[in-house]
């Protein structure tokens, strides 16, 4: 394993002016990123999530050499991002949803051609990568349209292609699916999943759409107030914040549900009740229910949105059981 992205004690402060009187303004220092440590291995797909203003974009901008950190060390592909910005730029691909890499007035095809020169990609390699993107992202129908006339979904597919034509080792995506319709979202996710499956590309993405994370990322970094509050799998997040799988039982005729150790019972109606699994497995529970006139049983996976919403609103959550 090779660490591709490493950061230690990463910190970024901004100065904001706050109005305190009619004319007086105070300068206040705010830490957007406040001591973040990261270690991401080659081929990992990491979701970086957190509420608005948590410091996600700021972290990404420091990792890509756009912003100079106030403190801390960073190494991406072995480079120091700000000092070796142009050399690092050849090795990474960046999609900042709101910052286009494409030429507004030119057809998509020409932007790709210009980028080939800018990144000095051999024509053969460029052609192979472009062909792959064209088929996976369905670019052909709008390849000759000026970028200013593309829909957001089409442009986003163009941006993704633009970020990949030089064969980057690391891909940073800031909100790649924001504002896209369902079809475009699926196209983008499917494409990224395929990319991640090769194992060569390391991917770090920020998003508010947790479906992105569930489909793509095995590892999740949650940041809040500039600090990493969770680093691990989605399952670990559920375990830590006490989200439970739930078994929903529907009966043919009314019957009293049994108490089962390791599961919390909620009676919804005489014919319907639910168990939150707090220790028992679904199998153990079903064995205990064997004698009932069951019509239907469904197992509901915990919803990551609930966990994250609780994280975002700052409601204290119980620690790991």
């Amino acid at each position: 394993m090779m660490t591709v992205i490493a950061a230690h004690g990463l910190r970024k402060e901004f100065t904001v002016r706050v109005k305190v009187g009619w004319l007086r303004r105070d300068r206040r220092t705010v830490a957007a990123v406040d001591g973040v440590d990261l270690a991401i291995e080659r081929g990992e797909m990491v979701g970086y999530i957190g509420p608005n203003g948590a410091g996600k974009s700021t972290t990404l901008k420091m990792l890509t050499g756009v912003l100079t950190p106030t403190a801390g060390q960073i190494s991406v592909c072995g480079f120091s991002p700000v000092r070796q910005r142009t050399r690092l730029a050849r090795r990474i691909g960046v999609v900042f949803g709101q910052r286009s890499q494409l030429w507004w007035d030119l057809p998509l095809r020409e932007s790709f051609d210009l980028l080939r020169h800018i990144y000095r990609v051999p024509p053969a390699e460029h052609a192979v990568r472009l062909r792959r993107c064209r088929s996976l992202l369905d670019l052909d129908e709008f390849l000759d349209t000026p970028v200013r006339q593309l829909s957001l979904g089409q442009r986003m597919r163009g941006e993704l292609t633009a970020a990949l034509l030089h064969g980057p080792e690391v891909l940073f995506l800031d909100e790649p699916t924001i504002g896209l319709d369902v079809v475009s979202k699926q196209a983008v996710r499917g494409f990224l999943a395929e990319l991640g499956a090769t194992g060569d590309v390391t991917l770090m993405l920020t998003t508010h759409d947790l479906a992105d994370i569930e489909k793509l990322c095995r590892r999740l970094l949650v940041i809040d107030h500039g600090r990493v509050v969770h680093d691990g799998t989605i399952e670990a997040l559920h375990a830590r914040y006490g989200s439970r799988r739930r078994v929903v039982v529907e009966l043919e005729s009314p019957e009293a549900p049994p108490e089962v150790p390791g599961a919390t019972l909620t009676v919804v109606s005489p014919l319907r009740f639910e168990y939150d699994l707090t220790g028992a497995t679904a199998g153990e529970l079903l064995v205990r229910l064997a004698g009932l006139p069951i019509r239907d049983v469904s197992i509901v996976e915990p919803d990551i949105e609930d966990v994250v919403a609780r994280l975002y609103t700052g409601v204290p959550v119980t620690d790991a059981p």
Partner: protein
Amino acid sequence: MRAYWALLRGQARSQTSYRLSFAIDFVSNVWATVLDVFTVFVLFGVTRSLGGLDLREALVVTGMSACAFATGDMLVGNIERITLYVRTGRFDAVLVRPLRALPQLVLLDLPLHKLSRAAFGTTVYLVALGAADVAWTPSRVLLAVVAPVGGVVFFGAVFVITASVAFWWTESGEFGNAFTYGGRDFTSYPISVYSGWFRNAFAYGLGFAFVSYYPALALLGKPDPIGLPGWVGWLAPLVALPATAAAALIWRAGLRRYTSTGS
């Protein structure tokens, strides 16, 4: 180098995709310089001598200034659009490319329609040189070429310095114009027409006297009424060097300070 060429190609293709507006810009850009020259003629309608120079001699100063400014403005002037890039955060997209930021910004929006103005400025300079009584020597020919080139570099540096202010002061607005367009107006006339602290600050403090006035004096073989020795004119183009160094330092400091915008 090929990479920067690609940027230029992209810009040329983008601009010419709006053909009519390009043509209008191309033609209308000449007017600013026409007016500058016209102003000199008007001044000589009321006086026979301006700061010790007659009309043809004064036109050498104006022509050299116009040539240097118009060319510098075409090549580097659009760096002032950095305020837009910084304010909107579009500068992020510039910084994630494997190219240096300054040449990228300059080439990304290179205003090719200003080519007409640079050509007109150069024509005025050449005509003025032909009309004035210059006792041509090999060294004067060299100076006649080097001086406007130094002026282009000098104005380029001024554009970069004033644009860098955007990194500290996002809404810098018209502040920079005082030094860029103000500098052009200052260098259009013999500096001996100005006086007091204003002349000293602009001419010597900021170095604008060495862009067109002193090189023109050396070309024309005229003494300086302010009293600087004759060799000053020959060394004047060197003022581009400290200006460039200052521009590079300020630009780099600005880049480090860039704070982007939320997204």
